[in-house]
């Protein structure tokens, strides 16, 4: 049986892992490669590295980091942040990333999705959507949540799939950093309306939140950051719990737990 995936997310700034609350207030959370290796050993199913500096002069640093990750890490990983062109995506994929995630640039120029998908395959294009509930509708936001767009979240997810996205990474801005649970309703709606995997993100605080987003929210994967970085919920403990709850998960082989 196909397993539900647990994905620790590492926000990268100047080569370090950081974690903010509601997109602000960054705390240092360690060396990305060291953390990544620890998560891989513990049984994380994939990793996401989000470069939140992503200025042009830092691009080289990011590519070197991706090469280092690819050298040491034996599970799939996605890199996102500041990808605007096919060339940006190509550089990261060639450095060893399995997938890239695109967000604001795809909203501004949707054909970027198909351009990358055509060249490297749908499976490596993750469409990241930041969503917020405004005036009774789930809307798409860009620029790290600062700018509201005209897109309704459901419509944009479907359009992303049509253009060739292989996965949707859906982050609820209202939930992000609050530890009050995933946005189960919109996650479920998106997951039912698209035929590609949906990764739920934003709001993980307890183990029960994961059961909820997998069962009621129909998510294929769930992403979280601080609860893993600060050791509040270790990955092996979360997975044992989920298995007891009847959620199919992969357990790391015993010697590594």
């Amino acid at each position: 049986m196909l397993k539900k995936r647990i994905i620790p997310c590492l926000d990268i700034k100047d080569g370090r892992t950081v974690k903010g609350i509601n997109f602000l207030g960054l705390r240092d959370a360690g060396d990305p490669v060291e953390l990544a290796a620890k998560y891989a050993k513990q049984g994380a199913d994939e990793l996401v590295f989000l470069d939140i500096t992503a200025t042009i002069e830092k691009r080289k640093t990011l590519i070197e980091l991706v090469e280092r990750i690819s050298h040491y890490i034996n599970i799939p990983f996605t890199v996102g942040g500041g990808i605007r062109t096919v060339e940006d995506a190509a550089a990261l994929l060639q450095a060893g990333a399995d997938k890239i995630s695109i967000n604001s640039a795809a909203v501004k120029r949707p054909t970027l999705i198909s351009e990358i998908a055509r060249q490297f395959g749908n499976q490596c294009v993750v469409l990241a959507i930041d969503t917020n509930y405004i005036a009774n509708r789930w809307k798409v936001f860009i620029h790290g949540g600062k700018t509201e767009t005209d897109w309704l979240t459901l419509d944009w997810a479907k359009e992303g799939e049509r253009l060739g996205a292989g996965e949707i990474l859906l982050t609820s801005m209202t939930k992000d950093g609050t530890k009050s649970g995933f946005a189960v309703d919109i996650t479920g709606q998106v997951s039912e309306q698209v035929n590609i995997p949906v990764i739920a993100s934003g709001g993980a605080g307890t183990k029960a939140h994961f059961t909820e987003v997998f069962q009621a929210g129909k998510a294929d994967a769930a992403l979280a950051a601080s609860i893993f970085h600060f050791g509040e919920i270790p990955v092996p403990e979360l997975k044992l719990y989920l298995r007891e709850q009847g959620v199919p998960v992969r357990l790391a082989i015993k010697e590594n737990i």
Partner: protein
Amino acid sequence: MIAIINYEAGNIKSVKNALNRLGAEAIVTEDITAIRQADKVIFPGVGDASFCMKKLREKKLDEEIKKLKQPVLGICLGLQLLCDHSEEGNTPGLGIFPNRVKKFPQGNEKVPHMGWNDTQFEDLPLFQGLGECSDFYFVHGYYAELGAFTTGTTEYILPFSSCLQKDNFYAVQFHPEKSGTVGENFLKNFLEKI
């Protein structure tokens, strides 16, 4: 020396990294002589079947791969191209395995089959010691049908060949290079037991 066949398909670097982590020497090459002389050959790949078959023909690697006598391991698209035919772009494959490669039917389940799934392995040296937690990482929208050379079966929408074996040709649909410790144990088996 392990030769990893380079034919402009994706995912080649991670195979080399995985072999290096196991201490094996590997080269990524399209050079026919280097491939012929290698102790073992890995035929990896992520991408479109008909595009990649075209690349193999351009590089004259299609006929060469069929003639190899040392152990050859096809991974992901590598497995599909070792089959007889793929629906992806309606292309003939190399025909080592008589299996046909089909698109997963549309239904309630999502396509591609992406993530970790388990495999029922036959009792063979390549699969020794993989244990009960034998989840491997898969990413594919097409699958090889079951057949006489199936050595591992995985279920997603329907049961399909996740492992094939015939003579010196071995193939897996999953990505051992991305499948954590279990994947490394599998690659170690290919390096040491085959």
